[in-house]
């Protein structure tokens, strides 16, 4: 029995958990290929133009798996922590898919909902228990599969906080040292914010991380911070943010600002993303308050061109370098570092 998992959206956070669960149950997991033009085109064809790019890409991955698997794992993700949503589109995703795609294998669209007082582990346990019961009556097996799944997920998270970037950490057989060395020889430290499905899908982001690295930047992402570090900073907001990813972005930005180690900050958002339209605004306004930390927002959709992106990145990193030179020059003459 083959279970298809689209390599999109929350795959970037939860794939180890999902894969291990199904594998332990004795099912074969089939992952869609990395995003490519065919996948994107299929997604665009089957969605409203108003839908954001990552959801279009998700449709494409679902289509790519359709005739290769017996089931598709597309859970309805309401809340993965209490009192915070991801996005309305995640809540309606299975319905959106069904209304627009024909001849699909059956969906496993069990809801994941931490509700008002649940927790980030229990919501998946509940989901898996329900999913497991569709495939086996052996409760023992379901429970041990869940336990194994969480062990794998923990290992994955350890790699991230150890400094590995998500794409490397997702590769099962990756050697930690290799990943770490890929980030040597840099002159700038650039913070990079964005939802994981934008940052780590090399096709969507047009290899943003790699491009920055090859321009001599060390890239710092939210994933290098622990959940507690992020939460502690996010808690300082006057009003609690009720979007999980938005909270991660704000909490990470506040960590970055507090550490004062960055030379610049880049925020990658999808065109038309609701939560980001407000969260990004706050991050940008606060960057100004950080002695005018160089800040760049990049909005992507299916029409974004690679050349334009490269130009903007080059201009941004050059600007930072020029500014640093200028500041060093000024300060060596005993003048103030910041004029305004």
């Amino acid at each position, binding site marked *: 029995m083959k279970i298809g998992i689209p390599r999109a959206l929350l795959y970037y956070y939860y794939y180890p958990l999902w894969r291990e669960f199904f594998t332990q149950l004795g099912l074969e997991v089939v992952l869609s290929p990395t995003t490519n033009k065919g996948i994107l085109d299929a997604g665009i064809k089957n*969605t*409203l133009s*108003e*839908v954001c790019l990552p959801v279009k890409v998700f449709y494409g991955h679902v289509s790519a798996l359709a005739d290769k698997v017996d089931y598709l794992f597309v859970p*309805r993700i*309401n809340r993965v922590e209490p*009192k915070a*949503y*991801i*996005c*309305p*589109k995640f*809540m*309606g995703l*299975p*319905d*959106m898919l*069904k*209304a*627009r795609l024909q001849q699909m294998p059956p969906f496993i669209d069990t*809801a994941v909902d931490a509700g008002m007082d649940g927790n980030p582990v229990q919501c998946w346990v509940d989901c898996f228990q329900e999913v497991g019961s569709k495939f086996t009556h052996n409760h023992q097996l379901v429970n041990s599969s869940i336990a194994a799944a969480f062990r794998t997920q923990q290992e994955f998270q350890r790699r991230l906080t150890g400094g590995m970037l998500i794409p490397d950490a997702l590769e099962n057989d990756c050697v930690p040292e290799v990943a770490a060395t890929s980030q040597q020889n840099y002159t700038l430290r650039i913070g990079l914010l964005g939802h994981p499905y934008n940052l780590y899908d090399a096709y969507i982001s047009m290899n943003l991380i790699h491009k920055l690295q090859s321009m001599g930047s060390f890239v710092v992402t939210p994933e290098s911070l622990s959940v507690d570090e992020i939460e502690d900073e996010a808690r300082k*907001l*006057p*009003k*609690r*943010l*009720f*979007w999980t990813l938005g909270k991660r972005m704000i909490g990470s930005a506040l960590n970055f600002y507090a550490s004062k180690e960055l030379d610049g900050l880049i925020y990658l*958002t999808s*065109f*038309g*993303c*609701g*939560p*980001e*339209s*407000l969260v*990004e*605004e*706050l991050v940008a*306004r606060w960057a100004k308050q950080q002695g005018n930390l160089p800040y760049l927002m990049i*909005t992507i959709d299916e029409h974004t061109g690679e050349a334009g992106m490269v130009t903007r990145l080059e201009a941004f990193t050059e600007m930072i370098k020029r500014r640093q030179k200028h500041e060093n020059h000024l300060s060596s003459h005993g003048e103030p570092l910041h004029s305004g």
Partner: protein
Amino acid sequence: MKITYPHMGNLYIVVRALLTTLGLDVVLPPPTSRRTVELGVRYSPEFACFPFKLNLGNYLEARELGADTILMAGGVGPCRFGYYAEVQRQILSDLGSEMDMVVLEPPDVSYKELKEKIRHLVGDISWWKVIKAIRLAWYKARAIDAVEEKLLYLRPRVYEPYLLERYYHRALHEIDALSHRRAVQGAVRDFIKKVGSMPQRSGEFLRVGLVGEIFTILEPTANYDLEKRLGLLGVEVTRSIWLSIWINEHLFGGLLRVSNECRDDHHLAPPYLNSFVGGHGKETVGCTVGFAQRNYDGVIQVAPFTCMPEIVAHSVLPAVSKDYGIPVLTFYLDEQSGEAGIQTRLEAFVDLIAAHSHDQKGGMLSGSVFGN
């Protein structure tokens, strides 16, 4: 303290009744205009939704008139509305236009906090006075809805639509000015009598249900006067959301029994949409099914550009449209929507549903669609 609040259609009348009865000094933002839109757009995040931008424009214009405090609702939805105030506060402060923002969070967030905020605004006040204020506000909300229901019914029918609009605005003005329940209800009766005797076309008219996000439905500046445009094209419009119904359901917990055609429609959202998705997404789908079951000729969905719950709803509507054979048209609206484009699309849609309903019902509609 001079208190202001954002516009949403005729909500200003209801809130003004409430606040002035409580003894507060209200400074209303000027009616939302091109200038409001420009101000709002200039200082808002580019991708914020349209209501956010209009709110901000309202605040800046109210400040020019001396307002120093903003009263605003909050929320913890998955929709963006609940975080508007936080971002708007930062924007106002960066502009050097700080205003005190009192954000009323729904009671389930913190009942105590809500009570404290109300205290902060009105000080010590007798419960009797509070109840009196709420009652007057409620009757005004009902009065506005009664007047507008009649308006929507008559728009395609009367020979003198512009006179009807005049009567309508006069009635709103009276409801706003009066401060006794009986007088308010009297104003409604007068309006209904007066417009009821206007010369009218007879026959059957095309009926369109209006669904979507509440602000865009209730605020004519946001929907580019969509209801009026449809009325002039000979269409009778039924709204899925009414001010008083919304107040009853969300603020009074559905305590009062007020009838509304679409009241139970949200149960009709499954199998098309099986989950709450924030905002009015589920209602949009449910009401579309409801209108279809009640044999409407078409449904129009309106939403701010990039509105997430409505995009989810829109994504599943083709399935409803196909199953019930009902034409559905969606408008995403923001400051860049062009009036001419909207008018053209509306005319084409009315053409389509006229032809469609002719096929279905096997006969010409006797009311002429394009007026004469």
